């Protein structure tokens, strides 16, 4: 059963499909450039010692995103 959640709630080690990016402006564009377009499969890979930011596996690269920013990304857990 699939479940829609915001990216910051995705547990470490789990994968998800990007549904929607609710950002505007330059961060939206930055995320798109990094390959975070709707439909992309990403995986929560690493949490930093204070649990924020979290590094995600996005198209073979490891990208750290702050919770503040991942909160506005909707994903479907796989």
């Amino acid at each position, binding site marked *: 059963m699939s479940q829609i959640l915001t990216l910051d709630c995705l547990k470490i080690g789990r994968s998800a499909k990007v549904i929607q990016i609710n950002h505007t402006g330059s961060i939206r564009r930055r995320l798109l450039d990094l390959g975070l377009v709707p439909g992309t499969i990403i995986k929560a890979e690493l949490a930093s010692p204070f649990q924020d*930011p979290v590094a995600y596996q996005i198209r073979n690269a490891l990208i750290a995103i702050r919770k503040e920013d991942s909160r506005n990304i909707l994903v479907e857990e796989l």
Partner: protein
Amino acid sequence: MKKKIALAGNPNVGKSTIFNALTGMHQHTGNWPGKTVSQAIGEFQYRGMEYELIDLPGTYSLISHSEEETVTRNFLCFEEYDAVIVVCDSLCLERNLNLALQILEITPNVVVCINLLDEARKKKVMINLELLEKKLGVPVVGTEARKKKGIDCLLEKLHSLESERKKPTKVRYSRKVEEKVMELEAILKKKEITDIPLRWLALRLIEKDPVLEKEITDHWKISLSEDQAISKVLETNSDIGKDIFASAIMQKSEQLTKEVVSYQNPDYEKRSRKIDKILTSKRTGIPLMLLMLMVIFWLTITGANYPSQLLFDFFSHIEGYVVNFLEFISCPSWLNSLLVGGIYKTLSWVVSVMLPPMAIFFPLFTLLEDLGVLPRIAFNLDKGFQKCCACGKQALCMMMGFGCNAVGVIGTRIIDSKRERLIAILTNNFVPCNGRFPTIIVMISMFLVAANSSGIASISQVLWLTFIILLGIGMTFLISFLLSKTLLKGLPSSFTLELPPYRKPQFFKVIVRSIFDKTLHVLFRAVVVTIPAGTLIWLLANISIGNMSILAHVNNFLDPFGKMIGVDGVILTAFLLGFPANEIVLPIMLMSYLSLGTITDYASISELKTLLIDHGWTILTAINMIILCLFHFPCSTTCLTIKKETGSIKWMLYSILIPTICGIILCLLTTFFFRLFN
């Protein structure tokens, strides 16, 4: 005619290695006109043809966010060039091809260079280069730039690019977009726009990038968005989704990658992930970072001792000959004294104190950098910077500051937000640079650690030093926080940080590079500022007004204030005169105490300690000396760099005032409590 070639690519794909492999020593660096973005241009020849190679700042896409990305975008869109080499990371092809596809929309004269093939082979990732070439419709070359493999092939493809039949692949967008593109192209054809594909321009008009629109207006002196025919087409634009451009290109590169890449070992990143888990976990992440810091300090301190002594001995041995020589050419005795006592002694002090620790510290640091550890440290510390409303990349600049604060200030260019960059610049001086380490270490070994040369003593030295560094880092956080609440009010901007794969550093190259690029560079600048400083100090100490030298007058004048903050006038004068280079603070101080006309060497730590105690030093003086060393105005080079990077004297003055005030307040506090309990 020279051919102009641009070199583009994502950050961290070995672009500069390719640049070096192609141009060798024939390169010059500077800044892009009007920008604080460094520019590298090189030259090379191949088969009788002359080429000029322009290294563009690394970028993820042509829609720009930072100053560096704007430079790249504007160059590719508006400048004239013959070809572009797009460098791609073989392990991250999807995202890299994304940029290549975007560039192909601007120009068909592209050679795609798939770099780091050795890394891919090691991880059993196979890339079908012929197929990729066929699919992209432009030449594709595989390279291992670090081993100089594939460079010949790259040159050959570049050489034959002109005669080649290129049919660059096109990204197709939705029917609605393509219809609009056709309409717009028809309108644009009537305008006098020659040097850019109209399809690209039409796409950007539909995308509505206000920054780019302004650049287009500036460049061609026409306002496209005000054109009636164009705005009519764009009017019915609202039903086109915002991300379709980014998505369409990304999907195309995803599909291409699927076709040409095969993974024989899907778990190839397992080891990297294991190391990552240890380096960034809740329990071990921070302690391991501290341990790493301490090991580096320990190696620097213990490793530098012996060569420092050797250099000291060498210079004092030579000194006799220099004096004799000057006498031989019948140089007047005052000039002799100025040249030897003023300049030569200051210079030899700076070189012997600075050179050995730098020659150890910089290579070690560069090794960490090459390994890919630094981004992990920024990742671990980001939460702290987030709380301070600052950027996590500030951690990287802070670490560069350990080497040299001026370098750290230049390093803040990686921070996109102007506000966050200013915070990083103003707080960079809170971590001690290599020039300040020796003073701190001497203070620790004299007053905080029992003076003997056993291994335990040097470990407790390292512990103290680490504690002092942590104090500096703590202050960085505190001041960043306060700045975000007052002078530089604002919320943290969004931030993404790439953690690149670990790479095996090339030891030999790292050592050569860090010694030539960093160590000698910093040493050279220290020497340049030391010569006038040495002269000034000599003059102050040797010209008397009344029955005292000017230096003594200054010392006496500053003494009451010095006493108030728990030090003395001599120490304050030394810091003031040490403005050109922090390394000379300690020798100036000793010179004043000994009332000698020249900079003095101290024979041993215990002799030095006796001298200081004779002049009323207590443990409080030593502690406050350390505090002032950590928190005072940046050296002259750093100040100039700050002025250049911020383009304003105001911020330079702030960068002088903030740490100085912090230092004075802290000294007042320690003095108050010390006197309270004694």
